[in-house]
């Protein structure tokens, strides 16, 4: 799918993020007199629906085509560790700082450890403990876990669906969340089927409320002038980076086209 598709999926996430009470004005938006919609589209429910149910619906139809692989040598080699160490570091840092903390409404920056010391150190400690437990569990049991791949998918996916239902229901004890799971699961399947990426949608959902609040703050500060986004250095640099990211594939394509035309001539 093109950059346009990715942008569209991200915008759909932003669209869904407008469901619920507007935090600044108190207006209920797109709730249609349903109390359960006032809290907005739940992040966990939508993630499980798009990536859990959507994936099951996509894969389950192809159980006949799946080959059962023979599992062996599950421990990563030294070369694999070397190859993956930078992506692991990069992903952990970006995922933790930009994903997990922002989701809890915590601004990352120099004051992070002063203002939210308890939460930040708790999260870091839990990561150490969690990784230690995983290490103890995974080293001896990796082979056993990998044996799950030998279970035919036709036996595996119904329990996965039941687990999705139980997990989604248990986070708010709400049957409406289960129906949301069914609806967005179908959407997730359709998106996967036609190569629309689902990840930007989740990103849009997470960032939607933060974006709206920040936009209002900036507009109020600048007395309604959009110039603030181009005159402030960080904002201007980010806008320039976005422009480069969006326009560079187009420029590359044009260059390739021109080269092809020149060769043909």
């Amino acid at each position, binding site marked *: 799918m093109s950059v*346009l598709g990715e942008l569209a999926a991200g915008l759909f996430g932003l669209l869904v993020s407008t469901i619920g009470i507007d935090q600044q004005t108190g207006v209920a*938006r797109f709730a249609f007199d349903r109390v359960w919609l006032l809290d907005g589209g739940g992040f966990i429910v939508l993630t499980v629906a798009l990536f859990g149910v959507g994936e*099951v619906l996509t894969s389950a139809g*192809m159980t006949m085509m799946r080959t059962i692989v023979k599992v062996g040598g599950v421990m990563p080699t030294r070369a694999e560790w070397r190859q993956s160490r930078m992506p692991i570091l990069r992903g952990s840092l970006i995922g933790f700082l930009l994903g997990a903390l922002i989701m809890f409404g915590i601004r990352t920056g120099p004051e992070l450890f002063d203002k939210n010391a308890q939460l930040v150190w708790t999260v870091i400690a839990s990561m150490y403990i969690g990784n230690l437990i995983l290490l103890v569990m995974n080293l001896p049991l990796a082979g056993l876990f990998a044996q799950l791949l030998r279970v035919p998918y036709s*036996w595996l996916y119904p*329990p996965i669906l039941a687990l999705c239902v139980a997990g989604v229901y248990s986070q708010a004890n709400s049957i409406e969340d289960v129906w949301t799971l069914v609806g967005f699961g179908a959407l997730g399947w359709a998106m996967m089927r036609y190569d629309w990426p689902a990840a930007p949608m989740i990103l849009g959902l997470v960032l939607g409320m933060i974006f709206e609040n920040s936009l209002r703050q900036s507009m109020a500060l600048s007395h309604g002038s959009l110039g603030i986004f181009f005159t402030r250095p960080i904002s201007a640099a980010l806008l320039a980076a976005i422009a480069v990211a969006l326009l560079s594939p187009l420029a590359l394509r044009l260059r390739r086209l021109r080269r092809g035309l020149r060769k043909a001539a």
Partner: protein
Amino acid sequence: MKLRGLEGELILCAVFIATDLFWVGVAAGMPLWDGFAPASGFLPSLYGALLAALALAATLMDVLGRRGDDEAKTPVRRAMMILLALAAGAAGIETAGFFASMLLMMLLLFRIAERLPIISSIAAATGVSGGFTLVFRSWLGVPLPAGPWVF
């Protein structure tokens, strides 16, 4: 039912556009601007209008840029069958309880969708539903609906 790639893509695009137009329509009834800053209806209207245009453009580019699409994909009928079983499970949770509705959902999938042996299907469905009920209700304290039964 065989849904060709192109038709399905157009249907998905139509769903996106219909949702966007609905969003814009509802947002039009809200205030758009308040003093210096956008009000409740501004961003939903903007998102809706932008998304409708983007979804249309992305689909058009995709349709023009290819495609007899011979990729192996889930048959629609099969996916719909699984989705129906999931919906039946969801519908039964509050009336029949979590254990019974998940048991039924898994039985439907094992037997009708996958045509697996009946005894094994019953054993697997009962074991998994019972296991999840035990873990979620007894160990994690989640008040999963019990329905008319005691479990």
